[in-house]
């Protein structure tokens, strides 16, 4: 049974190309045909560089913003339009965790009040029940009850992220969309939160859509990983296998760009910057930076197809021996 199924999601924005309000109208394709599915208790990692559309995909998955085209189904039924009572009824089932916990919390309210708030909105109205449940989730995320009356600025960055998590868990969701949940934290604290997320999944069977630019962290938490480039998924596969054996030239460049502690690896250094998303190159969007691009790549966009071993790749040339040798 699939928990969340997104099919061919698109989100386009009307923008002005060039400078100022008088530039020509243009279409920014933030997300351009993304399909993904998530099973209960599983984690799908979404990686890519800034501007690739991974955060927009997360918001589309929760119905926070309406898609330009495409559908999202939750447990087999279509996501109701945002703001409707039906959509509101689904809110407790799926929650969002953002990068900056200080920005996600109200500085003027004690954290305990903020943790109880989702229940006040969606569930038990009795303060005693709310408080009991808050005590439960605070313990689950490793916060102590004496921190209930603290204000966000009195807590450390790691503790604040625990508060955000506790609040998201109040309504017993079965899906959390985590958008760079640990990027703002120090290394030693990141490990604490990563372990916590994995424990919570074990105990409560929550599914995560885990969005991050940090490939090592994504590998650590994900069952499956999708790599995005300029609004599209270019490769998707099982986490360990994907990073051990990236097939798409972009994934290979991305993986090889990650500095590691061990012996230095061969690096596939890309030329130039990612193109402007308003002016996506023709054909395969990656062809301007791809060392293997041919005329066919410039002309026609490759579809995401499934290889015999289950890996999904959007590349015309992925099966050619020339690419294997170059790897």
């Amino acid at each position, binding site marked *: 049974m699939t928990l969340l199924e997104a099919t061919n999601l698109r989100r386009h924005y009307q923008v002005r190309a060039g400078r100022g309000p008088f530039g020509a109208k243009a279409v920014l394709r933030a997300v351009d045909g993304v399909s993904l599915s998530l099973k209960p208790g599983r984690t799908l990692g979404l990686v890519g560089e800034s501007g690739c559309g991974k955060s927009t995909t997360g918001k589309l998955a929760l119905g926070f913003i309406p898609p330009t085209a495409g559908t999202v189904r939750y447990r087999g039924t279509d996501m109701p339009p945002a703001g409707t009572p039906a959509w509101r009824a689904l809110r407790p089932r799926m929650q969002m965790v953002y990068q900056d916990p200080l920005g996600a919390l109200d500085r003027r309210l004690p954290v305990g009040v903020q943790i109880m708030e989702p229940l006040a909105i969606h569930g038990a109205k009795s303060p005693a029940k709310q408080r009991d449940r808050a005590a439960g989730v605070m313990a689950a995320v490793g916060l102590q009850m004496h921190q209930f009356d603290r204000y966000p600025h009195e807590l450390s960055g790691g503790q604040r992220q625990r508060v955000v998590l506790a609040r998201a868990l109040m309504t017993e969701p079965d899906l959390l969309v985590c958008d760079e949940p640990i990027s703002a934290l120090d290394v030693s604290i990141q490990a604490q939160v990563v372990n916590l997320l994995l424990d919570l999944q074990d105990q409560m069977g929550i599914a995560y859509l885990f969005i991050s630019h940090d490939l090592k962290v994504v590998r650590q938490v994900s069952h499956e990983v999708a790599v995005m480039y300029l609004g599209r998924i270019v490769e998707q596969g099982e986490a360990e296998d994907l990073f051990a054996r990236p097939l798409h030239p972009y994934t290979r460049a991305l993986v090889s*760009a990650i500095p590691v502690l061990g012996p230095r690896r061969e690096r596939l250094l890309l030329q130039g910057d990612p193109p402007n998303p308003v002016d996506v190159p023709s054909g395969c969007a990656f062809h301007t930076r791809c060392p293997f691009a041919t005329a066919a790549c410039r002309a026609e966009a490759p579809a995401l197809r499934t290889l015999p071993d289950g890996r999904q790749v959007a590349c015309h040339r992925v099966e050619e021996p020339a690419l294997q040798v170059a790897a």
Partner: protein
Amino acid sequence: MIAPLVEVTGLTVDFERDGRSSRAVDGVDLAIAPGEALGLVGESGSGKSVTWLAALGLLPARARVRGSVRIDKQQLIGAAPKVLEGVRGKRIAMIFQDPSSCLNPVHRIGWQLVEALKLHRGLDGAAAESATLRLLDQVGIADAKRRLGDYPHQLSGGLNQRVMIAMALAGEPDLLIADEPTTALDATIQAQILALLASIRRDTGMALVLISHDLGVVAENVNRVAVMYAGRLVEEAMGQDLFGAARHPYTQGLLAALPTLTGPRRRLAAIPGTVPEPGKAPLGCAFAPRCPLAEPRCQSEPPPVRHVGLMHRAACHLQIDIGVSAWSLPRAAE
């Protein structure tokens, strides 16, 4: 060891606020040889940036700086502004995390580069322009002539960082302090910038201090690494020794807390607790409250810095044997 280019001894920085003082850097000793690449690692608030801002006299007046920072015998702490002006940019240049906030948004980048060249090398007119083009070429900016007329907002983050590096190179410095130079950049752009820094070092023999929280970035780009925690230097060693045989429990904990890109996935060994707040470092070893092996003396006495191997120093009361991790000993609790 060859005579150091820059030598930091007993550097201490206190920030005064509302009559209270909090210590950001606490007795740091560091030496950088000519042409060497040193990595400076630590979490936020560990004092790794403040150390160099203090060295160059770039801290606000409420900072009290003591100790010594010398470049070729020239003392920088308490030096006259004129002396510092001769060092900043010319001997020691610094680049920062966010290039777009370091560049002036209302001036074209060509203008800003010429300004640096005028200041540091006294170049003007046609000589300055050709030097500017050479600099942009050196940092790998294609079509340099056209780029000179661009404003910072017209360039991407990666290009702006290249411009910052070009500007830092304008004075032909002996030492470049790169403070998280790639943290704001995407992975593929980060790889480009780090490759650029390496090639510049190869060509010019410039020394580099690479400040970063990312151990992977440091591991791949420097010879020697120093680890800071709560304002103190806790361990210093050659790269392969530090990453292969760390001797301080904090360094060992940091390494164990990192997820990897290859091999089987294992549960991360998280360091419990949090970094002490600035000014609230404990009396003894700053890491004692989080250390699995802390003893009573760790709480009360600051640990001495000991040589534990060739060019390998660690500040720990317990002399952990090579190959032993503080986090896998019986007393380690999660």
